[in-house]
């Protein structure tokens, strides 16, 4: 045994190493299973999967790409949060500051926005794929429902983020998008049957979303908190359930 080999062995057998890594590197079935089940990140997977679940031709990897986009927006989003203040007086100036003065500011903002758009596209394609392979069929009905919730959350995440640049594009897109709420039957001040409830412009479904009768600084703060805290947390909760269910039921195909 060379000195190098002995050195390596000493490290691998040390108490510190063994406290971190619970399995050997040797390619044995036991180690392959331990690599997944003994790893908190990888154990989102089952330790064995059906052959077709690995093929790109089958999965298009769209679920994974959707999750990857979610991770990219979290990483880039945290960077953006360092420089952005959700206050009407500062928000737009901070955008310019971010674009022109911050190292990699423009790149981070671009990646955040394009990843958000790509996430919407990927989640639609994922839904399309799951439909086409009939993967919502028993025993995975409930996971499809969780997936629909995640689809809605993806759109809400993207929509609340749309307002934050506080430019003409963002406030008018959000105005048009939220105007629907004032037409809600019973709950919107321009919706049918409104007179039976007594809603008005500052007290209806849209005002609840905006935090006031018109889009304004209060809306910016509200959307910021929804975008950076509430919806990401809620999405994470549903993602955990979504992944857990795949792990339990296996990836696609009739029950085992």
């Amino acid at each position, binding site marked *: 045994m060379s000195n190098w080999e002995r050195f390596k062995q000493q490290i691998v057998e040390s108490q510190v190493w063994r406290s971190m890594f619970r399995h050997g590197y040797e390619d044995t079935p036991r180690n392959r299973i331990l690599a997944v089940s003994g790893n908190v990140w990888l154990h989102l997977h089952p330790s064995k999967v059906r052959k*077709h679940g690995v093929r790109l031709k089958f999965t298009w990897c769209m679920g*994974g790409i959707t999750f990857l986009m979610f991770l990219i927006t979290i990483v880039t989003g945290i960077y953006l949060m360092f420089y952005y203040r959700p206050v009407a007086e500062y928000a737009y100036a901070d*955008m310019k500051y971010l674009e022109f003065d911050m190292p990699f500011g423009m790149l981070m903002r671009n990646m955040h926005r394009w990843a958000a758009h790509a996430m919407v596209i990927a989640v639609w394609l994922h839904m399309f794929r799951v439909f086409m392979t*009939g*993967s919502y069929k028993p025993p995975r009905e409930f996971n*499809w429902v969780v997936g629909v919730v995640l689809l809605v959350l993806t759109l809400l995440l993207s929509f609340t983020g749309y307002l934050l640049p506080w430019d003409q594009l963002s406030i008018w897109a959000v105005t048009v998008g939220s105007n629907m709420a004032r037409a809600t039957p019973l709950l919107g001040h321009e919706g049918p049957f409104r007179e039976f409830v007594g809603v008005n412009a500052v007290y209806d479904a849209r005002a609840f979303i905006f935090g006031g009768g018109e889009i304004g600084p209060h809306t910016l703060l509200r959307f910021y908190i929804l975008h950076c805290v509430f919806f990401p947390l809620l999405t994470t909760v549903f993602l955990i359930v979504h992944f857990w269910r795949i792990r339990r039921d296996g990836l696609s195909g009739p029950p085992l």
Partner: protein
Amino acid sequence: MAEAKVATPVATKRAKAKPAGPSDDKIYTWPHLVRVEFLCALFVIAGMLVWSLLVDAPLEEPAAPTRTPNPSKAPWYFLGLQEILVYFDPWHAGVVLPTLIIVGLMVLPFIDINPKGNGYYTYAERKYEIITFFLGFHIMWISLIVVGTFVRGPGWNWFWPWEPWDTHKVVAMNNVDLPYLLGFRDYWAQAVVGLTLIAGYFVVGTAAMYAWIVNKKGAEFMKKWGPVRFGLTSFLFLNMVAVVIKMGLRLGMNVKYILVTPWINV
């Protein structure tokens, strides 16, 4: 002693069940699946980086709540719904239809009891499911987004991408309500006719669907499917087709509303 007696048959049953069946085609997640995911992530991240280096995210002038741009467009993924606003009132296009879409997607696994096509691609075994999904997702949702994004200009008028946006373009709107078109001039008579048309559409549509499914799949299937599943499916399907019908009526016959009342218009 008693415990051991109970435990043994379970253990043998498990040991016997393992090698048979579809679990045979299983492979190890590490390295097979993790490798695919890792490579996929690597390429996608590289692609996102290149995209982000080449194309800057838009930033227009500062928000001005008093200056409304024309057209004002929602984020692109909602433009299908905004496009539907041409044909329906906001409470329907913006509230009822999105709710129906979400609910319809959620109930999908419960109304589709076809056991075939679980875990593999097939058209022949799930013809009607796939056609319906195509109508809803590709034909309606996606193509309306394309229309809303690329061919709607000032005043939400139709402009081809190569046409300049003329903010003063005037489009004659001679839309009339369907009962009026049918010759009814009295206000309440129009409301009654409108209500009858819509109720008739759902009654006849449901009956036609029932007859068609019994004819196609047999009474046995209908019994197994049950009235709740059938009711949900036909209600959702008829609502989806109603959107297409209303669009056809507007584009073909300039119909504004089918039902006009003091409270709601459809």
